[in-house]
């Protein structure tokens, strides 16, 4: 089956006064229709920049190389007008901070309306019908009243629902959600995650979920990519990664999280040290300084991503030796 979306050797660089920042390096993966892919990593791992780059939303000092194929079209080669036809229509994105992602001086109903009149050329009547339908499906109460309110009159959870509604209006083929629940309280997060689960069942859209929360990935995703220092360090099916993590960083992440199902009074196994400086990435493995199984080779030679089973990749010298 042809993937709906694939990245080929994506590189994202930022020019700064202090030198070049390598935000994303040599990133490749593909995504099938109906699949939910989790992208996991800490701040600075490049997980957000990857998709901002493919959506053409990089900061002015950013530059991109490689290919981002969406339904056979290279998004990185499209000009602004061509991109605008796809963005918000077949390709939608939900951002972490719903407070700054909605236009503050426009009624929520009008913002939703705009999506449909622009992309689908619907009449106001038809657009309104579709909006009510979508708002209904994600259970926003008192829709009529809500549509004539401004974003500041909504709570954080409600605004995030509006963002999701907006993304769903045109039934996108690919939905990218960047930390959609990070700013929310756990009980509201549970509501939104339930929504995503329903979405997965009812549509055939591919979903990319960018998050730092492995718990969220465990509940929702089919496949996971773990990023560190702008590169993929491990990729695999959710069941495999959580049960048998290969890369020392993935293992470290799973061991350092306090979790509700673990034995009490065990000391958390913190990963020592700090995340790497993206301006001065080492020649070898970016994780070498913090790794428990580091060797001399790790400091000089960068490990390449190797296949260990169908759909299972990891980049670590220690794995090759074993």
């Amino acid at each position, binding site marked *: 089956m042809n993937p709906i979306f694939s990245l080929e050797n994506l590189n994202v660089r930022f020019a700064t006064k202090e030198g070049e920042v390598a935000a994303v390096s040599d990133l490749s993966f593909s995504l099938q229709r109906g699949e939910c892919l989790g992208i996991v990593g800490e701040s600075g791992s490049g997980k957000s920049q990857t998709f901002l780059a493919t959506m053409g939303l990089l900061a002015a000092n950013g530059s991109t190389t490689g290919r981002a194929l969406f339904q056979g079209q290279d998004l990185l080669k499209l000009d602004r007008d061509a991109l605008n036809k796809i963005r918000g229509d077949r390709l939608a994105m939900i951002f972490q901070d719903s407070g700054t992602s909605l236009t503050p001086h426009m009624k929520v109903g009008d913002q939703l309306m705009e999506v449909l009149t622009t992309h689908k050329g619907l009449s106001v009547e038809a657009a309104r019908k579709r909006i009510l339908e979508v708002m209904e499906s994600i259970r926003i109460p008192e829709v009529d009243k809500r549509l004539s309110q401004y974003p500041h009159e909504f709570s954080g959870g409600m605004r995030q629902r509006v963002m999701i509604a907006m993304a769903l209006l045109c039934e996108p083929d690919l939905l990218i959600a960047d930390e959609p629940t990070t700013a929310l309280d756990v009980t*509201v997060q*549970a509501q939104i995650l339930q929504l995503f689960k329903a979405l997965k069942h009812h549509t055939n859209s591919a979903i990319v979920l960018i998050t730092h929360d492995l718990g969220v990935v465990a509940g929702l995703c089919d496949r996971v990519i773990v990023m560190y220092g702008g590169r993929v360090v491990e990729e695999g099916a959710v*069941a495999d990664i959580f049960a048998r993590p290969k890369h020392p960083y993935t293992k470290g992440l*799973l061991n350092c999280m*306090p979790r509700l199902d673990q034995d009490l009074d065990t000391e*958390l196994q913190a990963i020592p040290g700090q995340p790497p400086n993206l301006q001065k990435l080492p020649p070898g493995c970016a994780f070498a300084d913090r790794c428990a199984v580091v060797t001399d080779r790790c400091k000089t030679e960068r490990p390449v991503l190797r296949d260990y089973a169908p759909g299972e990749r990891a980049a670590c010298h220690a794995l090759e030796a074993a």
Partner: protein
Amino acid sequence: MSTVLKVENLKVHFPIKTGGVLKRRMVPLKAVDGVSFEVNAGECLGVVGESGCGKSTLGRAVLQLIKPTSGRVLWLGEDLCGLSPEHMRQKRRDLQLVFQDPLASLNPRLTVAEIIREPLYAAEPDLGRDEADRRIDEMMAAVGLLPEMRNRYPHEFSGGQCQRIAIARAMVLKPKLIICDEPVSALDVSIQAQVINLLRKLQRDYGLSLIFISHDLSVVRHLCQRVMVLYLGHMMELATRDDLFAKPLHPYTQALISAVPIPDPAKERDKEIIVLSGDLPSPMNPPSGCVFRTRCPKATTKCIKDVPMPEDAGNIHTVACHHWR
């Protein structure tokens, strides 16, 4: 075990202006509304709840950084409410605070050593420079900062390192109680674990009491011996950690615990999640009776009429709900 802090029926109400020019009136926002608890020596008490539940206000009111509207805060038997500023200042030696945003809570113009020295100057102005330096070095070592970092500025450090500096500043006077307000929420998971382990070590080594304010139940479960659950300024449940997580009695606690994602695909997909409907009501217009009733799956007419009082459920487990039995 000896009690160091006893908080009785603490209320913090903020007056808020509402209405237009003609209908202007003051409405109290009840951020904390009648909360009572104790902290024992060497104990870590967790305070959990969602945004707007009053957990940060509670922490500040205990330290008198916000004047409580009523109630008592007994520190070693002495009521802190109503102490003169000078008197309170002496008490602050024993009572310290660590904030959520590590970079914003450090003065950008001071070096690490100067930041940690500030409380020493304030509390012991006569302290010699050598002795001050010795204590600063000791504290930096205790929180895992290297000696060569003394003369660097906060912006040169990462979030986790800044939090270590903030903890060193809080610890340098050897306080008896530290209130930590979401100290690890702004940090990445791998760094979070470092700071949690540090707090555990300091608590053990120095016999510290901690009030650990957090929205993250997994972290609280890991660090605290007892846990208090707040909702809209009211205490819902207070129990030992083992009791609270093994058999939560309050519907809100049950929902909170069920909502925490578990990083294990099989468990996470099988588990029963109690999804609460709606959002937190406005604290300016809280529901009558039980404040949680608008989102509670067990709510009845009794909950609309009567405010549930904290009841003893045995084994120092307190719960405020009409239907816990």
